[in-house]
């Protein structure tokens, strides 16, 4: 019971081979390389084939893409499928444990954010990541009704990226103070940047740093 070996691990690629972006966008999204194209060689994501994927692909068609990278499976799905596919994964495929919800910011892309659900199934001892892309300012259905644990995780994503989750019971900042402006994990937020006004008012520090 080592890795989640649903599909064989990708063979190590030949040395020096240039690869395109590893972030496989959803079928609906335009393929955007996140960053430096001059990356060193690495393993490639390969399509992931399993009964699970077949079933959902037949159901949802092009809205869903399944891949494996370094032995880890992920589904890239269209934003419109989001609450349904997560619910199905929990109910039908026994992915009963939502490990984590997080996001990645790609400022140069049209749909700036990747939102990820990392799921785990106790009965199958298997992990899967579900990814979707949304634009800045767009919202996404909350998964709190599916996994209660999503409550704080979504709040953290909201806090750090400003992604809104529809239907979240109490969507507010969790780690940063309530009145804080800005979402620090966005790429356009500098590492030294602070909400100077907040610091001045609430901490009484004149410099705001």
């Amino acid at each position: 019971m080592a890795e989640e070996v649903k599909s064989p691990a990708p063979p190590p690629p030949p040395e020096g081979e240039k690869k395109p972006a590893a972030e496989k966008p959803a079928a609906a999204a335009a393929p955007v390389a996140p960053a430096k194209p001059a990356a060193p060689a690495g393993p490639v994501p390969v399509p992931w084939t399993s009964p699970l994927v077949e079933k959902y692909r037949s159901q949802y068609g092009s809205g869903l893409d399944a891949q494996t990278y370094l032995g880890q499976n992920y589904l890239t799905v269209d934003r419109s499928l989001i609450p349904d596919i997560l619910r199905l994964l929990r109910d039908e495929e026994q992915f009963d444990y939502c490990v984590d919800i997080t996001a990645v910011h790609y400022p140069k892309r049209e749909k700036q954010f990747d939102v990820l659900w990392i799921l785990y199934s106790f009965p199958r001892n298997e992990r899967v990541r579900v990814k979707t892309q949304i634009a800045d300012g767009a919202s996404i259905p909350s998964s709190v009704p599916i996994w209660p644990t999503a409550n704080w995780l979504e709040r953290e994503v909201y806090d750090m990226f400003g992604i809104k989750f529809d239907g979240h019971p109490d969507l507010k900042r969790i780690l940063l103070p309530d009145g804080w402006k800005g979402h620090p994990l966005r790429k356009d937020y500098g590492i030294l940047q602070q909400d100077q006004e907040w610091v001045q008012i609430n901490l009484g520090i004149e410099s705001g740093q």
Partner: protein
Amino acid sequence: MSPRTNDSANLDLETREKPYLDSNELIINMGPQHPATHGVLRVILKLDGEKVLGTECVIGYLHRGVEKIAENRTYTMFNPYVDRMDYVAAVSNGLGYCEAVEKLMNVEAPARAKYIRVILTELNRIASHQLWLGTHALDIGAMTPLFYTFRDREEILKIFEKYCGARLTTHAFRIGGCQYETYAGFEKDVKNFLSFVAPKIDEYETLLTTNRIWLERTKNVGVISAADAIALGVTGPVLRASGVKWDLRKAQPYAAYSEFDFEIPIGTNGDTYDRYLVRMAEIRQSLRIIEQAVNGIPEGPIMAKVPKVIKPPVGEIYHSIEAPKGELGYFIVSDGSTQPYRLRVRPPSFVNLQALDVMVRGLLVADVVAVIGTLDIVLGEVDR
């Protein structure tokens, strides 16, 4: 008071006119400066007399933006930062991070390094559980176990200090293996520790396990069912105490864990007492693992072939390990540069803390303290 303004958002604190003889619903602030919140956790309690009607955790006082820092540091430079998250189990944090990056780079640490990692990580697990036991017992009012556990934890910290020079934030591992070869006498020290600590564990247990007051304070307190625990994403000893036999060391073995023989202790009731028993049993299992590992350390290199400048290929990886507090995961997105494009830490304490509200509703104030203790949170990790 705190500058925050959201004192009690979801506690329905409408400013209604209080009746003349109103004796209900007291709102008290537990923390951020409170002896039993294990750091700067603030719990807003809504009480009816002493009965807890609801809680709200206000966290973030220790937020340092670890994930943001990661995006601005190279993989190597970021390594010490992970020690500062769960500072009582820094070795586990380092192991998770190094293994995640290694996995992303598709390299594997040599066998000897893996054994050293297992030994140090398990020692750290014991240290973490000892610290937990001491503070938890102190919260429930037993002073003495604290000093016993700190006395014995000291021996572990001495081994860390001799190995890498640091006691708490060890930065013991490097991407690709270990920086340091074991010092002369490392095996002897570890074996001495094993024979030293085993009777001490019994000593803690004589103080607590059958103590009537301890039983009354912990049995049926903070009960969480297996289904609730899974739904809330609770991991680690808290999940196992609810009867779910799941440990990443067995489920998805990493480092050299597949080579050792150990058991996953589980509880049945999911109450505070079971969590106590599970952690005590885990200490014993850790001792078993260390014994096997230290007797079987293979010879060989301690570093894999890793380039001087670490530049993982474009891609993303999620790797998690069984930290003393639960599943500690690292999700790393690489853009092929020397810095992580995005690094996400899946902190066990953060997710476990979310279960507090479910566990304490309907209990008394004294139980809140016991449940915070039994969740074994470290605010450095909750807030990152």
